[in-house]
């Protein structure tokens, strides 16, 4: 063994000690030496679409990027471009940044749930030898927040602390021990206020709401956001032949990324802030830093380190980032703040604890006549992404099914807990679980197979949902069919012995959000990518997309490599620094592949054109007759007539030097006009269907998920290796939420498990066998047809497991996670009710098909043909939600039927019978009170 790892092959041989080749090594001859040897790899026809003369099947039709496929990397299992750094320990995460002269920062956190800060005495801390800076809220009075409409955070407490763990003050000292001691020397006087822990209490008027929003405040409650939506015809719901009523409780869950937050701040000699942070969205942190520190944005350089997992938990601008910058400014030295695991739970931003009620209706044709959803979500102490979450809990339930009506009431309340925020599957996960379980129950009542019930109610490709989302590609049907086959569903469902069960669920998620969160200036693109090629031929790609482990650098490198027909080793993605990367809205909402790869393609196309023109000049062959392949451009007819990539490049560089191109992506205009129409709008949507098999021990209530068949429609898998990794990883995370993970708040409201021992993330032994199935529906606007694969795959696992548990023991528990104690008490309750004395005698559910089953099967096979034609653009008739109910797709349904409504505010009659979250609408906004309305 020798010391360290040398990236550059040195004098040694390029053959490994054991006689094997060196990893991914690409030897380079001196630049300019190309052009004389005809050796080149053959075109890889297996990865060139059949319509372009290759062998890659295209069941979903052609794509506008097909002609740029060169068979280089797209569709191939490609290791991450930064994998070598990760497996050699060279990847530098937040805490690995070591600057000369750095000092250590620590944060003093509130021990109280809710209190006024009367005074802070830092004199003793300041006097401690080794302490270089102490700071409190006074130093940073500016508010910030991830969404411009809800800025409600401070770097440190100004006037109030809002949850245990809220920041009060911070200290920087020569080492950690001194910093810790200094923190303990700060004396704070608090006046304790009445804390709220139960989100239901957040709906009530109180004396001291956690935040005050002035004239926009809703009564004097703690309601941060309320949503009301009503679409379609709800007048005939009481004539339904199946109804489901589910009242759900979801505990909050944390992202549980392995890397705790860490930040290093340094003011350089020109007075610019250099901030190193593992951020998913460096740009938002950049904006917030400029505001809080009161410096222009160009005086701040945000450097994204490697990110040890994000999942939404590193996408807010964080107060500790401000603290580090403030301390560094005061001390005049670089400051590093690293969290311990407990602090990760204090900043949280995990999935909202929720109370969700769903009512669902189906008519005697097995059509879904209505979804009624009410979601009360517990936002904790701050707004974070909550404004959006409040919408997502409803609107992301409007597909993939065609609905007769849709009604959603939602409210997000502040409570005195660490803030909830965005987490993988943002806002969609809990509601999705509730409605997919509801569909299972309705299928039972209608005595039909739940897969057939779904297949007969799907929206086709190129259609519009009830709230006006534009669906483009849609692989839901294939996904359902594939998991049905793969799992042997028809032989197992409702046929297995007690304790063994199989269940399914579907998912639907956005692939990028239609409106950027910050939309000033108005026509700003969502993503921009710059490409630069100098005479050495290496391609530098600048993008602001944050690689958080999902492989966004790899995806961007792949599409550039594909378009330019260069080995991926020649593409160098620079995405670390805001100084050099174009502004990008970061890694959230599953937007990166879709938007950044699109921007990268358009930049690469510019370069491609220049190269082709130069080659055409040299060869005197028209551009259309040239093809690119493996660092060479040559005549289609006679491959020996050609130039090397370098030759063409150098020709293009004549008189101007490096080739530079910029590409941008913006979503097309779309969506409805009602209030909140933009929430949930996306340029494309992903679809997924899972089947899970479980074993339930009826004696103990312990659930073991053994197998999962996971089909996900990601449009086109640019990198199947990464897509499968995302699918399996999503299963893992979702399985945690459904079986074991929860943030437990005790009776006094204190978080009882802020550590990874008591917060139970599934270990390798709890993981089922996952069979990832990739569905490629070829999205017309996606890069090479691709859509998201990072978040959507999480949704279906929860309902699939809950439904499988029902199949195994005939019991539905609507309270996640399904820990053994809950299952066991449900079993005992059922035994008592039905007079069973041994749990082994519980009757597992069985199913006899009704006549409807055949009707559904017939309808779904009819729809199958329709969908295939629409997918391949052979049928381009418009299709809107409602066609299944007899509406004409060419006119909006509200114009066809007087009972068909669109409303985003309750009428006064509706105000009288609102459900839980809906009751937030019974309060009046302050400004309306003043108006006397």
């Amino acid at each position, binding site marked *: 063994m*020798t010391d360290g*790892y040398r990236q550059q092959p040195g004098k040694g041989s390029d053959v490994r000690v054991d006689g094997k080749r060196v990893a*991914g090594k690409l030897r380079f001859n001196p630049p300019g030496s190309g052009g004389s040897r005809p050796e080149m790899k053959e075109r890889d026809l297996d990865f060139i679409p059949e319509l372009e003369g290759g062998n890659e099947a295209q069941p979903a039709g052609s794509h506008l990027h097909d002609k740029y496929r060169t068979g280089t*990397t797209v569709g191939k299992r490609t290791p991450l471009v930064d994998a070598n750094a990760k497996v050699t320990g060279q990847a530098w995460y937040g805490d690995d940044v070591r600057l000369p002269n750095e000092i250590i920062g620590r944060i003093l956190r509130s021990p109280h749930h809710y209190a006024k800060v009367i005074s802070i005495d830092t004199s003793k801390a300041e006097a401690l030898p080794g302490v270089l800076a102490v700071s409190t809220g006074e130093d940073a009075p500016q508010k910030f927040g991830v969404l411009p409409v809800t800025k409600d955070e401070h770097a440190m407490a100004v006037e109030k602390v809002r949850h245990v763990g809220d920041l009060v003050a911070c200290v920087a000292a020569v080492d950690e021990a001194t910093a810790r*001691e200094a923190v303990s020397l700060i004396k704070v006087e608090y006046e304790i206020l009445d804390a709220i822990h139960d989100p239901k209490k957040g709906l009530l008027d109180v004396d001291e709401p956690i935040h005050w929003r002035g004239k926009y405040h809703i009564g004097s409650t703690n309601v941060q956001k309320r949503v009301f939506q009503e679409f379609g015809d709800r007048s005939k719901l009481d004539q339904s032949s199946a109804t489901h009523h589910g009242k759900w409780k979801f505990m909050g869950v944390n992202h549980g990324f392995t890397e705790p937050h860490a930040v290093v701040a340094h003011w350089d000699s020109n007075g610019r802030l250099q901030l190193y942070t593992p951020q998913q969205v460096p740009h938002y942190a950049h904006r917030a830093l400029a505001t809080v520190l009161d410096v222009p944005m160009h005086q701040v350089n945000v450097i994204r380190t490697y990110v040890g997992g994000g999942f939404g938990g590193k996408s807010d601008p964080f107060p500790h980032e401000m603290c580090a910058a403030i301390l560094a400014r005061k001390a005049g030295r670089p400051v590093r703040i690293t969290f311990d695991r407990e602090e990760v739970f204090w900043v949280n931003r995990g999935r909202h604890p929720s109370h969700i009620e769903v009512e669902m209706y189906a008519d005697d044709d097995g059509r879904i006549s209505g979804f009624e959803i009410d979601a009360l979500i517990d936002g904790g102490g701050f707004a974070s992404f909550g404004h959006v979450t409040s919408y997502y809990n409803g609107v992301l339930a409007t597909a993939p099914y065609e609905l007769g009506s849709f009604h959603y009431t939602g409210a997000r309340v502040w409570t005195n807990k660490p803030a909830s925020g965005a987490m993988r599957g943002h806002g969609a996960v809990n509601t999705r679980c509730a409605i997919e379980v509801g569909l299972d129950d309705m299928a039972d009542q209608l005595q039909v197979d739940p897969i057939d019930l779904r297949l007969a109610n799907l929206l086709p490709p190129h259609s519009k949902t009830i709230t006006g989302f534009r669906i483009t590609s849609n692989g839901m049907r294939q996904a359902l069919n594939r998991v049905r086959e793969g799992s042997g569903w028809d032989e197992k469902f409702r046929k297995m012995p007690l304790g063994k069960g199989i269940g399914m669920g579907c998912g639907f998620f956005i692939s990028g959000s239609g409106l950027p969160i910050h939309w000033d200036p108005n026509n700003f693109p969502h993503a921009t990518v710059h490409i630069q090629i100098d005479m050495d031929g290496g391609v530098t790609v600048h993008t602001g997309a944050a690689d958080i482990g999902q492989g966004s650098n790899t995806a961007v490198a792949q599409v550039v490599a594909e378009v330019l027909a260069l080995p991926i080793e020649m593409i160098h993605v620079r995405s670390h620094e805001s100084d050099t990367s174009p502004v990008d809205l970061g890694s959230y909402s599953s937007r990166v592949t879709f938007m950044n790869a699109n921007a990268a393609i358009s930049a690469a196309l510019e370069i491609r054109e220049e190269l082709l023109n130069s080659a055409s000049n040299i060869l005197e062959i028209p551009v259309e007759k040239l093809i690119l392949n493996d660092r060479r451009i040559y005549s289609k007819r006679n491959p020996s*007539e050609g130039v*090397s990539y370098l030759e063409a490049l150098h020709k293009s560089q004549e008189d101007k030097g490096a080739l530079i191109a910029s590409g941008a992506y913006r979503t097309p205009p779309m969506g409805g006009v009602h209030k909140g129409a933009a929430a949930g709008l996306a340029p494309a949507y992903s679809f997924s269907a899972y089947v899970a098999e479980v074993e339930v021990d009826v004696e103990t209530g312990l659930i073991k998920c053994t197998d999962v068949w996971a089909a996900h429609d990601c449009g086109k898998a640019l990198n199947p290796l990464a897509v499968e990794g995302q699918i*399996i990883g999503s299963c*893992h995370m979702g399985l945690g939420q459904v079986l074991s993970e929860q943030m437990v708040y005790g009776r006094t409201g204190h978080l009882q498990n802020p550590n990874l021992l008591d917060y139970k993330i599934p270990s390798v032994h709890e993981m089922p066998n996952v069979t990832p199935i990739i569905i490629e529906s070829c999205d017309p606007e996606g890069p090479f047809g691709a859509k998201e694969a990072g978040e959507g795959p999480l949704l279906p696992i929860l309902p699939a497991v809950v439904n499988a548990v029902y199949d195994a023991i005939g019991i539905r528990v609507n309270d996640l996670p399904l820990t053994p104690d809950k299952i066991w008490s449900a079993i005992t309750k059922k035994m008592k009710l039905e007079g069973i004395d041994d749990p082994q005698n519980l009757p597992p559910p069985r199913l006899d098909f009704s006549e409807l089953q055949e009707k559904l099967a017939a309808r779904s096979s009819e729809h199958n043909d329709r969908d295939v034609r629409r997918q391949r653009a052979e049928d381009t008739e418009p299709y809107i939600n409602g066609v299944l109910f007899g509406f004409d797709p060419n006119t909006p349904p509200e114009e066809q039927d007087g009972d068909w409504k669109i409303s985003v505010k309750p009428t006064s009659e509706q105000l009288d019978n609102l459900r839980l979250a809906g009751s937030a609408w019974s309060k009046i906004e302050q400004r309306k009170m003043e108006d006397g309305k």
Partner: protein
Amino acid sequence: MVGEEHVSMLPQAPTKIWKAEVNGRQNEILAPSNAILLDVLRDKVGTLGVKRGCDMGTCGCCTVMIDGVPRLSCLTMAFEVQDSKITTVEGLSEGAHLAPIQQCFAEHGGSQCGFCTPGFLIVSQALLNENKSPTDQEVSCAIEGNLCRCTGYQQIIESIQAAAAINRGDVEPAKPASEAHSNPHPSGPN
């Protein structure tokens, strides 16, 4: 830190000379007698590939090999392992060459965000040193103390099995996505 109790962290424990071989290099380092191995490795030896995920033995990111046995460096006192041989992730590669286990983690998706990877690499290398042909169950038992939030473990197990196969000489290592080219800029005869 939550709370306002005054905790005196000073004076520090007296310093002593800590001796150990890290990745084949002898180290003599002055460290407080109560120093934790993880801190010494990260802050003094400079092997930043050893990660701190929880500091309480629950995540496995800090795993290092001590005399061939994987141990959690966050729960190990530095002086407890005085004079031992320590291997961190930085010591796995063979000079310029990735060890098969590293190669396979990269090629089979065993590493996504990569933060857990150093720990996994160490436990799997330790397993493969002992057991040339582990079953999937044995692999699971070896990595059960390590947490990965990204991969769902499946591709990690595949990576380890692939490395085992290479070590046994059963298979050639997989080729990278694009082959190594002898001449990066080939061209036609003109």
